[in-house]
């Protein structure tokens, strides 16, 4: 579709762009910023969410001469990103790590990252994918270092920018090789070139490895996960929560689209795709998936800082999520999308508890959570919701994480080729129970009779958000039908 025609399908992105500019402008004129700017963010994001849901063309159109594609898959991820940004805005109101005088720019960067993520999920061209990947990354580098005069925060930011810049450089080199052998930059063009001739196998392999390095860094998979624990620990807590869901989902969205559109084709059977690149990338991704979940879970065992533990847990979850990519089937993509819905609820919930605990006690150490359930009625409520999030992250019924894992395992077993990966994943779930249960043990079984633990309070906003997230996590494990229908509609486009 030509440029001018495309504009009416592009309203949500235009609204987000306007929001970014508005936040930076409003920031200039205000002394007390937190409430007005957060209100502007939430209203702007909800308006663009409404626009996403109301934009026509849900059956799949390509905009701007094939640069951007609008389809149920990208709409799904747009909803995920905008909901995440709304929740992170509310989290930031509850946090005291960012000074009020910096609050406007901070929110502007969150809005810019969301705009980048929305475009990344719908990009259908290597140039667009590269540029929007940078639009997601660059504001995140700044956000990680937002605690002023904090050694840990500026160190997190430095590590993030160095790893990020190097891996995006490798990715663009990989794209240049792929452009050399296929002569095309659009995903469909690459697919046609790969399935028509037999371009240099080694070159395609090298370029795939480089591209996976760039995207693998974004979603924090082995061996590009090293930045993740340091950045998650040093960044402000709302930003840690944001990084673990928003940019990660964006990386997965473009990874799935790139591998499913450019490197696979449908061979008649509607529910499966076949790898056409003469390079066995599903095997490569399966190895990465197994290594990622194992490394993430093993390293999480010994952590004493809860943000660091959740960072390793999010690495392990990236490994589980890659199973949905490896399956290369409609069920696999559905499982991936389903898991993202649940992961958003439970992971943001866990980070909200960490944030609340930090603002009360100035501590991120797991040992300091001792007897949280017995300090006050609100402490008990917070501890119970944390237990729900952690059980769901482990994948214990009846919570949403269990259904998500069942779908992922089912997709791998249905594919028949990588049964061993499902076995590795089940073993990993058992390991993860150990370190998640350790936190629950500290909160409930320790310090029952202790006298001087101190009280624990939460603001009404925190309690409301925790209730919503905990109920969402629990309900998605019991009535998952509506979510399953939504994701199966969103996942269907690559297949048949």
């Amino acid at each position, binding site marked *: 579709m030509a440029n001018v025609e495309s504009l009416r399908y592009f309203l949500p992105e235009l609204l987000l762009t306007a929001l970014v500019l508005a936040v930076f402008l409003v920031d200039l004129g205000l002394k007390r910023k937190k409430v007005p700017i957060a209100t502007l963010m939430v209203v702007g994001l909800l308006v663009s969410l409404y626009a996403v849901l109301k934009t026509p063309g849900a059956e799949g159109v390509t905009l701007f001469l094939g640069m951007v594609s609008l389809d149920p898959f990208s709409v799904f991820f747009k909803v995920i990103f905008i909901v995440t940004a709304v929740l992170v805005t509310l989290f930031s109101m509850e946090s005291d790590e960012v000074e009020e005088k910096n609050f406007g720019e901070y929110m502007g960067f969150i809005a810019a990252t969301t705009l980048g993520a929305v475009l990344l999920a719908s990009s259908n061209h290597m*140039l667009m994918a590269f540029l929007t990947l940078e639009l997601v990354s660059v504001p995140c580098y700044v956000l990680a270092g937002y605690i002023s005069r*904090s050694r840990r925060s500026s160190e997190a930011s430095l590590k993030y920018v160095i790893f990020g810049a*190097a891996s995006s450089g490798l990715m663009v080199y990989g794209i240049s090789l792929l452009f*050399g052998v296929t002569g095309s930059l659009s995903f469909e063009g690459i697919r046609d070139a790969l399935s028509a001739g037999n371009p240099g196998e080694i070159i395609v392999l090298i370029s795939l490895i480089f591209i996976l390095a760039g995207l693998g860094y974004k979603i924090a998979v082995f061996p590009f996960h090293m930045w993740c624990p340091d950045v998650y620990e040093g960044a402000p807590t709302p930003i840690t929560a944001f990084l673990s869901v928003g940019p990660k989902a964006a990386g997965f969205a473009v990874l799935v689209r790139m591998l499913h559109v450019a490197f696979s084709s449908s061979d008649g059977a509607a529910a499966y795709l076949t790898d056409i690149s003469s390079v066995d990338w599903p095997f490569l991704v399966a190895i990465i998936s197994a290594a990622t979940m194992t490394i993430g879970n093993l390293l999480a065992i010994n952590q004493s800082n809860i943000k660091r533990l959740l960072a390793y847990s999010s690495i392990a979850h990236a490994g589980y999520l890659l199973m949905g990519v490896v399956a290369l089937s409609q069920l696999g993509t559905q499982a991936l999308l389903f898991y993202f819905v649940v992961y958003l609820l439970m992971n943001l919930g866990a980070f909200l508890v960490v944030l609340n605990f930090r603002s009360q006690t100035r501590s991120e150490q797991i040992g300091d959570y001792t007897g949280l359930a017995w300090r006050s009625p609100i402490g008990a409520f917070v501890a119970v919701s944390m237990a729900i999030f952690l059980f769901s992250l482990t994948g214990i019924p009846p919570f949403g994480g269990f259904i998500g894992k069942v779908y992922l395992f089912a997709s791998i077993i249905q594919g028949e080729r990588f049964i061993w990966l499902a076995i590795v994943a089940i073993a990993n779930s058992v390991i993860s129970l150990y370190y998640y249960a350790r936190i629950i043990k500290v909160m409930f079984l320790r310090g029952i009779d202790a006298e001087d633990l101190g009280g624990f309070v939460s603001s009404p906003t925190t309690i409301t958000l925790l209730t919503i997230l905990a109920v969402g996590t629990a309900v998605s494990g019991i009535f998952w039908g509506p979510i399953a229908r939504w994701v199966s509609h969103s996942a269907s486009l690559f297949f048949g």
Partner: protein
Amino acid sequence: MISLQTYLIIGAILLVLGIYTVVSRRNAVGILMGVELILNSAGLNFVAVSRFVELSIDGQVFTIFIIVLAASEAAVALGIILSYFQTYASVYADRADSLRR
């Protein structure tokens, strides 16, 4: 007449030098220069391919974007290095070990 291979080989050499710089330098600004080398190797590849193989403007447009992006990324990275310098009084990346303790 210089052939496509020459450009690709120079691109590969630039890439290797860039990766070596990123891995071996202690100075954060030096690491950043290694990243610039990697980005430029990709840019060179794009221009060469679009000149010799695929006679379209796509590759050259991509290179322009790489140059713009390298500039903006360097601006952000230098800002971050400056804030790191203010807290650590150093630009050596290996001093950054206050996390994971």
